């Protein structure tokens, strides 16, 4: 009798563990339907998805870094620097977009290298390495703009960030492409497996012949590059050369990744959860606004969801 009971409980748990985040998503969707009929309006769904895309793009980068056992706090700094540099160089004209893009992607890659080298060669903990780089980037940005950014975002960038193809936002397509790229790498290329092995156990991965330092370095480079892309997409959403663009995205992306079930210690998790995590955070923000709730609800609900989601995941690791 007892055994039966526990196996029953086990079943409940296994549903939770396989689909926890999806159950949470459904719960939020259902409560949205009950609380605010406006949520399911096509225009609102369109806006939620379009709003989710920039966070989604950087969250993919953050997922890769965290799977490899790291963390990246500098990506918001990269996003903001991207915006002001592109706005300044192009002055809102498509014509000089190519050199501007070359420069910002170059900056992104360089920042990724700096993060990666600090973490691998100098063995600086990722948290402090990327935090130091974030402070440095903020300084560089202010030196560059003198606190008064000039120029604006060219129409072409705005098209890829703010328009729609049929009912689908263009930036969502970019997000999907990034996700598809991630899936391709993790499923079809050895590099994907190497990220997981490195994150799971660095020593074992090294002994099995993986160049763990190179893998870690690359995760940071990919993340910074995606931060450049995310910065462009977010900048194109409004077109203003915002010195504070992406503020808070570093912590929000981490929150989305862990809500999505990627382990903080690295080595386990995946992109599906991250996508849902991003949607969940964006939807919560949207619903709070639809219901016209004051700011404290937004903050408290967000905090509670983060803790609850991760607690749910750790149930299974606990059990195993």
């Amino acid at each position, binding site marked *: 009798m007892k055994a039966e009971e526990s196996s029953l409980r086990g079943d409940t748990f296994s549903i939770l563990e396989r689909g926890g985040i999806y159950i949470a998503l459904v719960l939020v969707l259902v409560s949205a339907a009950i609380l605010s009929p406006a949520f399911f309006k096509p225009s609102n769904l369109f806006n939620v998805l379009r709003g989710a895309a920039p966070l989604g793009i950087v969250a993919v980068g953050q997922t890769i870094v965290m799977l490899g*056992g790291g*963390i990246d706090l500098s990506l918001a700094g990269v996003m903001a620097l991207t915006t002001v540099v592109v706005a300044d160089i192009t002055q809102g004209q498509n014509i000089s977009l190519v050199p501007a893009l070359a420069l910002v992607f170059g900056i992104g890659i360089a920042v990724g290298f700096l993060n990666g080298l*600090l973490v691998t060669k*100098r*063995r*600086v*903990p990722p*948290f*402090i*390495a990327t*935090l*130091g*780089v*974030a*402070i*440095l*980037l*903020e*300084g*560089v940005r*202010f*030196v560059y703009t*003198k*606190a008064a950014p000039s120029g604006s975002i060219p129409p072409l960038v705005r098209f890829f960030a703010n328009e729609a193809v049929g009912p689908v936002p263009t930036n969502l397509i970019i997000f999907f492409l990034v996700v598809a790229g991630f899936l391709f790498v993790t499923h079809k290329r050895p590099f994907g497996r190497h990220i997981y092995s490195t*994150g*799971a*156990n*660095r*020593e074992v991965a090294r002994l099995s012949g993986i160049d763990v330092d190179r893998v870690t370095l690359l995760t940071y480079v990919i993340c910074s590059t995606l931060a450049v892309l995310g910065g462009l997409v977010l900048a194109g959403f409004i077109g203003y050369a915002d010195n504070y663009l992406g503020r808070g995205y570093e*912590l929000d992306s*981490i*929150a989305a990744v*862990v809500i999505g079930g990627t*382990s*903080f*210690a*690295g*080595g386990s998790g995946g992109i599906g959860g991250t996508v849902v995590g991003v949607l969940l955070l964006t939807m919560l923000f949207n619903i709070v606004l639809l219901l016209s709730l*004051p*700011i*404290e*609800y*937004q*903050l*408290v609900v*967000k*905090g*509670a*969801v*983060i*803790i609850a989601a*991760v*607690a749910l995941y*750790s*149930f299974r*690791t*606990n059990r195993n």
Partner: protein
Amino acid sequence: MADVEMNNRVWSHKTQHFFETHSRFIIVVLVLLSLAILGSVASPYFRSSRNLLNFGRKMVVVLTMLSIGQTMVMIAGGIDLSVGAMVKLIGVFSAGMMLGEQGRLIPVSLLCLGFGGLVGLVNGLIVTKARVAPFIATLGMMSILRGIAFGYTTTPIGSVPKSMRFLARGMVGPFPFALFVIILFIVVACFVLKYTRFGRHLYAVGGNDEIARLTGINVDRTRILTYVVSGGLAALAGLFMVSRMGVGEPDIGEGLELDSITAVILGGTSLAGGVGGILGTVAGVLILGLIDNILNLLRVSSFYQLVVKGIIILIAVSIHRAKRQ
């Protein structure tokens, strides 16, 4: 993961452990000394006794309180991101409840400290019992505490009784009163870490919790206690802040958590746990305070201040290359 292994080794070789701690500590003290020398050479104002004594009345004090708690949490292998939000929340709660009345000073202060400890307890329970990664648990708590603070007030509120201002602003002879308080805290914290069972347990738990468990240490209780201490000290830092300001201000406390973590890591405490100490942390806090102070007195534009600060932090943490093999 690799860092855990690094620590396995550190734990198993005690001499190495000592070398590790001390070499990091020596580096941080060297950085601190060179900053101090640079400051005295570059600016006559820096050398003035008023400036030096001012450190006893500045954010350094608040940051030291937060960082002592943070050090304990981190030695035991955790991290506490909720401390900045706690300072914000206690800042408005305490002033809002004291309303400048002397009679409410003690009860409200005790209530605030209790609340800080309680939130720490919740953090600890979430981390140990619900097995949520400390970063995430306290990140969530940070959001919740900020929410409560804004729910309580978004505008300046209340005031503290005049006598409370003595805590942050009072002078004993030429010395700021807070200097004595903070030195007392540092001494007690050093003592706790070095000579008490709790202190030794912290290092064991942070070094390798499995081994710690096998040697009969109550790992969960030790961890929870670190969060309680951290929460309580954060509440105390909030009281200190409000005594410095005189009025409850909702626009404070953002970013203090990252500053305290930076200070602790600068001071040589490992993010993976098991390694570190209070004196290093104090040196780390002083480095952050000195950077700001010197650059301000040299009238360096704040744009370059950020660049310089970032570079100094990166250099300080990367001089020492942690051993892995």
